[in-house]
Structures are given as structure tokens and as C-alpha cells.
């Protein structure tokens, strides 16, 4: 009995330590820093109230980053949603080589995002871009007028969105595939007997039944995208002229590279209310998916 009483908590401890030390402490410190005057290398701590927040709100870069964060998250999630839905439906059908294709689709997720992004950095390079090479060969653009993918504000934003979509697609596809597999075969067959064609079956039967799981996939994707800066950091570093700067990258550049820990913390704190709402929605739709 004694052993039984301690075994449970003992099993818990590693997980609790992990959350407290690696998530809880930094989280609390971010709050503490955001109302102080801490810089990298500075000694002591002075409470400055909401000064950092006021200063951040006045910065045009910050407002640009907020706007970019939304553009980046919403566009990539729309693309992921459409792509993952189509892919999951295609991959559910039986066809020769299905396992291989499923594996291929998973690759971008399995490979470290940094390696994938570095690959894309070369694919989109201003001089050596294979995309431009192909475009020139098929005479769609002239040799010296090829687009500079990462160098023009609009193209740079489109590029990071597409690369991030490429990276997020497999995860969403796998979630949706699981949701699709859970739809009873009978129901799809009943729709066929009832006279529903390809599109009616997909849009009026399968998609609505997948809705709860789609919600989960999109909200997870949105939270992940909103807090992630890997693709942007490797491809553009927020440039050109901050045109791809998002909140996480701005917080990193300000707080870590720019040594202004307090202001960096204040920037990251802005993310919290949005993420809390998103997390609440995730939990709610996950619960619903369970019930129905």
C-alpha cells in the first residue's frame, strides 16, 4: 500500500518538473520582465509598470508585425486546410502505391524544419533559384527580370507563407485522414445509393462530418503558426524592411539579439490573450468531436 501511494506521484514528477522548469518559469519571467527594465547583462531590476507596453505600441514595426502575424497565420491556415482536405480525401482512396504517397506526404513534417527551410532558401535564392531557372527556360520570364523571391516585400511574404504551408500540410493531412477513416463506410455508401454524386457526397456528407476534427487541426495549426518563427528566421529574418516580421520573430530580435529583454518580453506577452482564446476553442471542439 505504501508503495502504491508513492508510485503515482513519482511517475508524475518528471512531467511536472518539465512543465514547471521549462514552461512555467520562463512564462512567469516573461511577465516579470515585461514590467521591468531588464537588459542583457544589466544588473538589478526596477519596476517600470506598463512603460514597455506603451513603448511597444508606439513602434510602427510592432504594428506591422501584428498585421504580418495575422496575414501569415490566416493565409497559411487557409492553404493548409484546403490542401489537407483534398490530400486526405485522395489518400483515403485505395490506389497502387498509396503507402508510398502517404510516406512522401509525411516527409516535410518528419524532416527538421530547419533543413527543409534551408532547402527552400536555395530554391528561392536570388541567383541560384531553380524556380527562376525553370521559368527562364520555359520563357515565362526573361533572364535578368526573374522575380527575387525573398527580396521583394510581397513576394517574400508569399514565399514564407508557401514554405510554412508546405511544412504544416502533413500534420493537418494526418489529422484529417484519421477523421476521415472514422466516418462509417455505411454512410458514404448510403449517400451513393441515395443518388449523391462526387461533390454532393464530399461537401454535404463527408465535410460536415469531419468538421469537428477540421476545427482541431486548424486551431492547432493556427497556434503553432502564430508562435513559430523558424521558417521566417531562416528564409528572410523578417526582412525585407520588416515586411515578413511577425510577433515571435520581432520578440526574438528585440529581446535576444537586440538585448532589450524587457521589451522583447512585452512583445511576446501580446500573444498570450490570443493564444488563450485559441486554446480554449481547441479544447472545446476536441470535446465536441468526442461526443458526436
Amino acid at each position: 500500500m505504501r508503495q502504491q501511494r508513492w508510485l503515482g506521484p513519482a511517475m508524475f514528477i518528471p512531467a511536472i518538473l518539465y512543465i514547471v522548469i521549462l514552461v512555467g518559469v520562463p512564462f512567469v519571467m516573461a511577465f516579470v520582465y515585461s514590467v521591468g527594465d531588464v537588459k542583457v547583462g544589466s544588473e538589478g531590476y526596477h519596476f517600470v509598470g506598463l512603460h514597455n507596453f506603451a513603448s511597444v505600441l508606439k513602434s510602427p514595426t510592432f504594428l506591422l508585425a501584428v498585421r504580418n502575424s495575422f496575414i501569415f497565420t490566416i493565409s497559411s491556415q487557409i492553404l493548409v486546410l484546403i490542401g489537407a482536405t483534398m490530400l486526405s480525401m485522395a489518400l483515403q482512396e485505395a490506389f497502387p502505391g498509396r503507402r508510398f504517397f502517404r510516406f512522401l506526404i509525411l516527409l516535410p513534417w518528419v524532416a527538421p524544419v530547419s533543413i527543409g527551410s534551408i532547402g527552400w532558401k536555395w530554391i528561392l535564392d536570388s541567383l541560384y533559384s531553380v524556380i527562376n531557372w525553370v521559368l527562364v527556360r520555359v520563357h515565362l520570364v526573361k533572364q535578368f527580370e526573374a522575380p527575387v523571391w525573398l527580396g521583394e516585400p510581397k513576394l517574400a511574404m508569399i514565399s514564407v507563407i508557401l514554405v510554412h504551408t508546405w511544412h504544416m500540410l502533413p500534420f493537418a493531412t494526418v489529422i484529417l485522414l484519421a477523421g476521415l477513416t472514422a466516418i462509417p463506410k455505411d454512410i458514404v455508401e448510403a449517400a451513393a445509393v441515395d443518388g449523391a454524386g462526387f461533390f454532393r457526397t464530399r461537401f454535404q456528407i463527408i465535410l460536415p462530418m469531419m468538421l469537428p476534427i477540421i476545427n482541431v487541426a486548424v486551431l492547432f495549426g493556427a497556434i503553432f503558426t502564430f508562435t513559430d518563427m523558424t521558417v521566417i528566421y531562416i528564409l528572410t529574418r523578417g526582412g525585407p524592411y520588416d515586411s515578413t516580421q511577425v510577433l515571435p520573430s520581432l520578440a526574438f530580435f528585440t529581446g535576444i539579439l537586440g538585448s532589450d529583454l524587457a521589451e522583447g518580453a512585452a512583445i511576446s506577452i501580446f500573444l498570450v490573450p490570443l493564444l488563450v482564446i485559441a486554446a480554449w476553442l481547441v479544447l472545446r471542439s476536441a470535446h465536441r468531436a468526442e461526443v458526436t
Partner: protein
Amino acid sequence: MAVVETRRLTKVFKRGNVGAVVNVDLETREGEFLVLLGPSGSGKTTLLRMIAGLEDPTSGEILIGGKVVNDLSPRERRIAMVFQSYALYPHLTVFNNIVFPLKAQGVDRAQRQKQAEWAASLLGIGHLFSRKPRELSGGERQRVAVARAIVREPSVFLLDEPLSNLDAKLRASAREELEQFQKRIGTTAIYVTHDQVEAMAMGDRVVVMSQGAVRQIGTPADVYDDPADTFVATFLGSPPMNLVPLADVIVGFRPEHFLPAGVAERGGAHLSYRFQISHSEYLGAELILYGTIQGGALHQKKVISRIPSTHSAGLTDGSAHTFAVAESDVKFFDKQTEKRTAPRSLS
């Protein structure tokens, strides 16, 4: 309304394996209630799914209304099907479930409303229109599934064990109701079941299947009283027909035809045997007696007798009595093929 016909219909799921359905020739009659009866794995559901167009036949033809439909999709066959699970669309209300086939056909809104109300009134589910399937009881779900199937007045009505998810009490009343309902709308129906009581009670004709092949087609009385082979003889009836193997022939008679001598006599020639009762089961209305025959051609053969409880006086375990069976109730089966053969003398 239409006649469904299959010609040498075969389905082999895995190359080299035995077919799930083998060379099935079948023809329904106009407005008939045809029951496919067989144990699980007998191919009855596969046969139904091929008729529905949900499964491609390996060979053979399917005709609906005289037209070969092998290459037509389910929607083009103008059939309706009720699934074992009912397969109601969980995200749609009862009303939207029922009108779904009409929407797919492009029927306009006013007409849809009218037909849905007609179907719902036939089944008494009009008050459930705004509910979701998960808010319905098993019996209500089954009615909604039937309503969805009939709402566009299909040419053929296919049912795959639609009563198997209902509890026993509800099943009996739903059975009766479904049968009456089919008579009223007069649509040809093909009904799959493994339950012989359902088959006997509902079918105009019963198709008995085993291992993918049709063993016998006939009215419930035909298949029960004149089984074509030993499989049909034992699959129908509970307890099954007594089958007694002799030197060159198998003798069969139903337990309820093997009665105490005094009860059995009702004219005609009889075969009498001494029946030693080893044990019995009391089932309320009737009594099942297990025992062996003493003397004669069937000496030491184990048989079962099923008699009304009202005649059970004195039939205790271990006692021996004279039992008799009418000669006309005794069937003979070939020992090799297990098919019916001509009657012969047993004395």
C-alpha cells in the same frame, strides 16, 4: 416497380479463393418480398450489395427492370437501401435525412416537403422532423431509414438486416409493420437476414443460401416442409430436422412430427418406434425431448421430439414410450450429394 434478376452472378474477393457468391441465378416477381436467408458468410449481403451497385461482380449479370445494370452506379439504378446500421447522416436532422435523396435528384423544395411528409406519415415519424439521429431510439432510427429509402419511390427496395439492431420485443412488432408496409406500397423488396423466423414470417419467397450458393428458393412452406437438401433441412427449424444416416440414405423428419403414438394418429400411414427419453427441456408452451430409438431400422439413433406441453404427461427422463411419425412427413436425402431423393420403405 421492377423485377430484379441475376444471371450466373459471381463475386470472388481474392483471386484464387472460393467465391463469396457463386453462380447465383435469381429472379424476383413484381412487388414481391424476397428474403435472402443464410448463416453469416453465406454471401447474402454480398449479393445484395452487388444488386445495389456497392460491389462489382466478378462475373455474371444483374438486371433491373429487364435492363443490365452491371455498369451503372448505385444512383443510376434507382434503388433504395436500408442498412443494418441505418447509416443515417448524423449531422442532418430527420427531415434533412429524409429529403436527401430528393435533393440529390433535384426535386424542388415544395415537392420535397410534400414527399417527406407523405413518407413520414406512413411511418408515423412526422413529429421527429427537427431531431438529430442521435436523439432517436433504435426503433425511430429504423423508421427514419425506411422513410429515407421510400421517399423517392424507388423501383426496388433493398434491406440489409434492418431489424437486427432492435431488441427482441421491438423486433417482432417492427417485422410485422415492415411487412404490412411493403404490401401497401407494393415495391419489390429484397431483404437479407440470418434470422429464420424473420424470413418465414415476412417472405413471399425465401432464398436459402450457404457458402455463396443458392440452396433453395421457395415459399416459406416449401423450404420448411420440402427442403431441397440437408443444409436447408437443418438450417430452418429449431430444433432442426432429425437427420438419421442409414446405410445408403439419410432419413429426415421434423421434431414436431415425431409425437407420442396417441397424439400423432390423424389418418394415413405411420411409422412407430420405441423412444427412450434421455433428457428434456421445458420451454413453457412446448417440451423438447432428447433420446434414442429402440429397435427397428433406426435402432440406437439419436433423435429429438418437440411436443406441446399439454401432451407431456408421463414423459419423464429415462422412460420409454411409443412415438410415431407420419410416413408423408419423412424425407429422404442422398448420402453423397445430401440432396432430396425419392421416398422409400423404412420397415
